[in-house]
């Protein structure tokens, strides 16, 4: 077990790209070696130690590496990109593309994250205490397949395009979402406890979405199927009654996406 502690040294002006802040690249390295790993600012690279103080505790076991970022990393992009194992804990906020393409391991953020957290995630866990920006667990531009597996938990709210193109895995949002949650979803599960603005499940053909709060503008291509109670999805027990819809028939006559909407908060639907 190795613990790597990164303490931000100073305010960052131009945003950094630090895909090397990643258990896969830290494993088995000394503090000095880690401090010399390159991070990008504009077209130049700098050693990590220019921006972070690096401390390493424990042995040099490669099996398990925990990275703790003690402080704000909201202008640091791509932390944990593609990581396959280990753990990253950020005691603050994180920049864009946190855990993009992650295959395994865990990331825990005590603050907020910018857009694109866990883009095209394959496995592992991303847990955000605060809020997230746009494109949580989403597919890259033009791609119809996003998250394939793993789990994203957001205790706050997320913005637009949560789980776009999702094929598998689970996303839980305690707070609210904005537009196009689960757009073009083809599998997997999204549960939103709070409200949603619009476009929920738009263009989805399979998979499941649950919205606990009010949907301000319902997607027109969904057909009402009836009321269900006592739902348990993704290991989560959902209290109350839900209206079940199938769609999105705007995108295909054969669509099989399932949308559950809480009855209490959406009486007029």
């Amino acid at each position, binding site marked *: 077990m190795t613990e790597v502690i990164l303490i931000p040294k100073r305010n960052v002006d131009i945003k950094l790209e630090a895909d090397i802040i990643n258990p896969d690249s830290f494993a088995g390295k000394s503090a000095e070696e880690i401090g010399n790993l390159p991070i990008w600012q504009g077209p130049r690279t700098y050693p990590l130690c220019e921006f972070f103080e690096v401390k390493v505790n424990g042995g040099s076991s490669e099996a398990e590496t925990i990275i703790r970022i003690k402080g704000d990393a909201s202008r640091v992009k791509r932390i944990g990109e593609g990581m396959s194992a280990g753990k990253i804990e950020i005691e603050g906020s994180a920049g864009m593309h946190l855990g993009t393409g992650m295959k395994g391991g865990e990331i825990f953020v005590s603050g907020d994250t910018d857009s694109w957290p866990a883009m095209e995630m394959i496995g592992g866990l991303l847990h955000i205490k605060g809020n997230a920006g*746009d494109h949580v667990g989403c597919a890259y531009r033009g791609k119809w397949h996003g998250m394939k597996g793993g789990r994203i938990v957001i205790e706050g709210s997320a*913005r*637009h*395009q949560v789980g776009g193109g999702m094929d598998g895995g689970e996303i839980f949002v305690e707070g609210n979402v*904005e*537009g196009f949650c689960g757009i073009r979803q083809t599998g997997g599960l999204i549960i939103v406890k709070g409200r949603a603005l619009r476009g929920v499940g738009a263009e989805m053909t399979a998979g499941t979405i649950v919205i606990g709060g009010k949907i301000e503008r319902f997607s027109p291509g969904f057909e009402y199927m009836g009321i269900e109670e006592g739902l348990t999805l993704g290991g989560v027990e959902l209290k109350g009654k839900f209206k079940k819809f199938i769609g999105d028939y705007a995108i295909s006559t054969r669509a099989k996406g399932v949308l559950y909407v809480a009855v209490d908060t959406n009486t007029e639907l």
Partner: protein
Amino acid sequence: MEVLLITGSTIEEGRLAKGGDKFKAEYTKECAACWIATVDFVTLCSPEKVKVTSKNGKHSVVVYAKCTDSVRPGNVFMPKAIWTNVVVDPDTLSTGSPLYKGAPVKIEPTEERVLSAEDIVLKVYVRGQ
């Protein structure tokens, strides 16, 4: 009064902008304008000028108020120019393009002066320099 702001081209705006006349009074007259639906206009007591304030209250701009039946009540139109951009929301929803159509703003009658395009730059954007 809270309204949805729609911005867009007008032919005169196009003519003046492409003609390089952004510093002319005529350009200010054409573009520093907010077209308000008759009902709303009357509710605001038919003001000569209105102050338009962005959703978060951070920015505002004074423009000439104009009455029109071309927009529905609750919507206003401003020609695409520097004045309208003062209050356009810089959030792009991760698309690169700000919300030029349908952004919520606040409008209220005002007696303040309408700034020229140059003054917007010098007095609003280059504060304190």
